[in-house]
């Protein structure tokens, strides 16, 4: 694509897509960690209730 090219190619859309993939993937992983932790904390609360009975 670079033959006879005058100046940089217009590739801004691909840059935005790439950055979006990076941020969304990291955000989803953080959410996944948070959700799994919350579920385990609920399990511990339940187990404590059962142990108390």
């Amino acid at each position, binding site marked *: *694509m*670079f033959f006879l*090219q005058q*100046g*940089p*190619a*217009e*590739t*801004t859309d*691909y*840059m935005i*897509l*790439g*950055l979006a*993939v*990076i941020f969304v*993937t*990291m955000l989803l*992983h*953080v959410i996944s*960690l948070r959700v*799994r*932790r919350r579920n*385990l*904390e609920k*399990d*511990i609360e339940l*187990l404590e209730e*059962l*142990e108390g009975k």
Partner: protein
Amino acid sequence: MERKPRLLTVLDVLSIVLLAVATWMALFWAPMEALMGNVQRVFYFHVAAGWVGMMGFLLAVIAGIAYLRTGAGKWDIVGLSGVEIGLVFAFINIVTGSIWARPIWNTWWTWDPRLVTATIMFLVYVAYLMLREGIDDPNRRARFGAIYAIVGFVSVPLTFLSIRIFRTIHPTLVGSGDPAALGAFDMTPNMRMVFFFSLFVFTVIGIDLLWHRIRLGWLKDQVEQRKFQLMS
């Protein structure tokens, strides 16, 4: 329940701030590449994600060896955490590479040695997670995970070296690559600075996420132990 360490909170904040700074530097500090245009800016995070991914898999090997030597369950948690973090960043690396390739190579995907070895590496570690889940006995699961992480690591140096030992169109950043590579470029001092800063930032983010994942593993272990105690 164990309280979140203050250092981890500091690391969380630091990760967010550093990522914002690295993004600003990649977008505004580094100059636009003369031929590829703005999509080249993805390269800073693409390489950094690949680096963190491989470090995650290396950690799984170290944890695997430590588990086989000591038999301590904590090493299984560390190894599993390393693989999970490695997979997240390897995924980012592969997908951003594909996005970069579309305007530069005029295709989303090609059966180039680097792309193939990176995908095999990714799938090897996806299989690690899937196969682990099929083993009920925690000791057998941990032993399997340790051995698999050590053997599966063969795919990591193979991926790293693929652009140096095979004929490829993938650009080589360190050392000499194939002259047929498409999209290679010389970094200006500002580009180099952003590149190394991004490597540092992604390493900090990787450590932060790894710490969270290890804490999650410990909590899961506690829940399983308490369930076992309650049932026995």
